[in-house]
């Protein structure tokens, strides 16, 4: 007993603060989803070490999906407890079992159900054997769960590290590619940097409030009116910076494009979904439920962060020709939308953020799965030109990707629309009109680059010159000439555009031009999609459409999650 619970015991002792080791009552059922993931992970690890010959990657994938389903069921059981008995704390008040936490347990479980499907296809194609991806994904998932249910800054820190360290390794999973290793290193250095900042923030907060327990900090702050304690505000700022790094909010986003681009694509999708889920879970809980009294101090900062994140994410994504990098910037833009809910700091805002994170996780996983499939062996090439004619070669895949991208753009009748609507609604309800307008404007800019990919997928040289007069051989030559001309314009315009906001409104029009270029259409890359990936895509696209047309259950879920807080 003491052996297996040493860490938690020590934690409990520190929380109780009563000299001597007084072991708290450990209610394992409250952390059952986490335990399922960690226990399953150990079993997978042992199985792979003990089996006489290497097991196929599909076996691990099946096991991981099974564990994801198991933890989903365990989470839903917790949800039932919470809805019938109300929120409660467990394990020496270091674990919060409330609607908010359970919502994220469900999100993480869903990510873990879908992600292995995409990974299985990729790892098989790349010939990467072994159970590393799945083991690391499971550890990372448990970290995100701890972050969501933690009621103590130290536990949040532990969860953050349990979440992040496997992600560093996942980014470098593909030994053969130099870019993968580089991505891992960049992610690691900046991740460690942000962790250090975060810990220092905890230390300062601890010094100012006398505790690391969120409930106690909240109680302390409600007892003592503190408006300008330098140590406390400094701690708060450092905490925010640490979180901003994890969720890739501008100006702490600089690692995102490189890491997303370099990491093996299924790892990128997983990283994008999981890091945001865990990061936002803790960020929302710490700031909205623990520091509401200091709202006037942190709200303006979040306001600025949100605007920078929204605008930069959308604007820089426009000029990307690498689809993976474009999606990286678009994920920054999405982070800005989630911050919208935090800035509102109301129940509605939190519900909007929760909903957004859930929707975004599935969209981003599915999108990167398609990118992995189209990118070719060894993530060879993610240039947008590779997508030309995909609608003809793989119509179903292209339509699926189109739906995911349109949903990310916020097209009506997809989950994407309601997620954006939810947070914007919260912002308007909180009278942040400017922020709401900027968010919607950035969605307009973002829509452009999603549509551009869709457009390229469904345009061909044959279709491109669809004029009625001069069809046939002469037409292709003409289209080529036009394209060359437009490309020239494109280059000069982009050169001058820079970061100028005005130019970016005009520039996209020209950036769109490259799809006119026939580029001689070299050999069209083969795109192979394994049944695993297909299954995962069907899940993601299906959820996007079903909950886009019938969002009520998901909206209710997010709404209830914030009621039992």
């Amino acid at each position, binding site marked *: 007993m003491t052996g297996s619970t040493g860490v938690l015991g*020590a*934690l409990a*002792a*520190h*929380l109780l*603060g009563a*000299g001597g080791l007084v072991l708290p009552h450990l209610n394992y059922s409250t952390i059952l989803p986490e335990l399922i993931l960690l226990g399953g992970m150990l079993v997978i690890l042992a199985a792979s070490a003990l089996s006489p010959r290497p097991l196929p990657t599909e076996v691990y994938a099946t096991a991981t999906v099974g564990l994801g389903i198991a933890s989903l069921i365990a989470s839903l059981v917790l949800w039932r407890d919470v809805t019938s008995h109300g929120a409660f704390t467990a394990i020496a008040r270091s674990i919060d079992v409330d609607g908010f936490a359970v919502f994220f347990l469900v999100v993480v479980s869903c990510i873990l159900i879908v992600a292995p499907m995409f990974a299985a296809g990729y790892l098989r194609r790349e010939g990467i054997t072994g159970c590393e991806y799945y083991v690391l994904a499971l550890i990372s998932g448990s970290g995100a769960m701890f972050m969501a249910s933690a009621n103590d800054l*130290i536990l949040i*820190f*532990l969860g953050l*590290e349990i979440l992040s*360290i496997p992600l*560093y*390794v996942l980014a*470098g999973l593909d*030994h053969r590619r*130099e*870019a993968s*290793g*580089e*991505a*891992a*290193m*960049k992610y*690691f*250095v900046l991740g*460690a*940097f942000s*962790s*250090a*900042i975060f*810990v*220092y923030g*905890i*230390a*300062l907060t*601890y*010094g100012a409030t*006398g*505790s*690391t327990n969120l409930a106690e900090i909240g109680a302390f702050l409600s007892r003592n009116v503190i408006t300008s304690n330098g140590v406390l505000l400094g701690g708060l700022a450092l905490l925010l910076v640490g979180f901003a790094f994890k969720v890739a909010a501008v100006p702490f986003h*600089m*690692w995102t*494009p*490189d890491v997303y*681009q*370099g990491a093996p694509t299924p790892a990128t999708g997983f990283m994008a979904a999981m890091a945001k889920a865990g990061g936002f879970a803790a960020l929302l809980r710490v700031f909205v439920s623990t520091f509401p009294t200091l709202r006037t101090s942190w709200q303006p900062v979040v306001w600025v962060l949100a605007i920078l994140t929204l605008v930069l994410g959308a604007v820089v994504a426009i000029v990307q020709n690498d689809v993976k*990098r474009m999606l990286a910037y678009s994920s920054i833009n999405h982070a800005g939308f989630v911050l919208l809910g935090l800035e509102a700091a109301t129940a509605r805002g939190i519900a909007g953020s929760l909903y957004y994170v859930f929707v975004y996780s599935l969209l981003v996983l599915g999108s990167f799965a398609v990118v992995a499939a189209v990118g070719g062996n060894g993530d060879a090439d993610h240039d947008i030109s590779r997508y030309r004619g995909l609608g003809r070669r793989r119509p179903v895949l292209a339509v699926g990707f189109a739906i995911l991208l349109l949903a990310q753009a916020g097209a009506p009748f997809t989950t994407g629309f309601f997620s954006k609507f939810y947070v914007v609604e919260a912002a308007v309800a909180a009278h942040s009109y400017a922020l709401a307008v900027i968010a919607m404007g950035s969605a307009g800019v973002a829509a452009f680059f999603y549509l551009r990919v869709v457009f390229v997928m469904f345009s061909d040289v044959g279709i491109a010159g669809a004029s009625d007069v001069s069809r046939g051989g002469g037409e292709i030559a003409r289209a080529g000439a036009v394209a060359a001309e437009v490309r020239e314009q494109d280059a000069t315009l982009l050169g001058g555009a820079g970061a100028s906001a005005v130019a970016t409104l005009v520039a996209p029009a020209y950036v769109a031009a490259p799809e006119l270029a026939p580029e001689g259409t070299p050999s069209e890359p083969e795109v192979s999609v394994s049944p695993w990936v297909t299954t995962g895509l069907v899940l993601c696209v299906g959820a996007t459409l079903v909950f886009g047309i019938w969002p009520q259950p998901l909206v209710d879920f997010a709404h209830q999650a914030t009621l039992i807080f």
Partner: protein
Amino acid sequence: MSVHASWYLTLAALLFTIGAVGLLVRRNVLVMFMCVELMLNAANLTFVTFARALDDIGGQVAVFFVLVVAAAEVVVGLGIIVAIFRRKVGATADDAHMLKG
């Protein structure tokens, strides 16, 4: 003799700043790691100082967690570096230049 707590805190803040600046300006990955360690230890020093000032054991316990996490981080970090630089001569961050950033 007793030294006032604020001196420790100032020292910790200085260490933290040195670590942060070092990480941002140095290009040798190993030195960058050390800078991260410096930052983490600055946080530890802050924890201990506050624990002493508040007469609360919690801060000291936190230090253990930070130490453990730091060790785990270093293990993974060194693993990544070894994996990358097995094929290279030096260990400078500038050698990693395939990605745009």
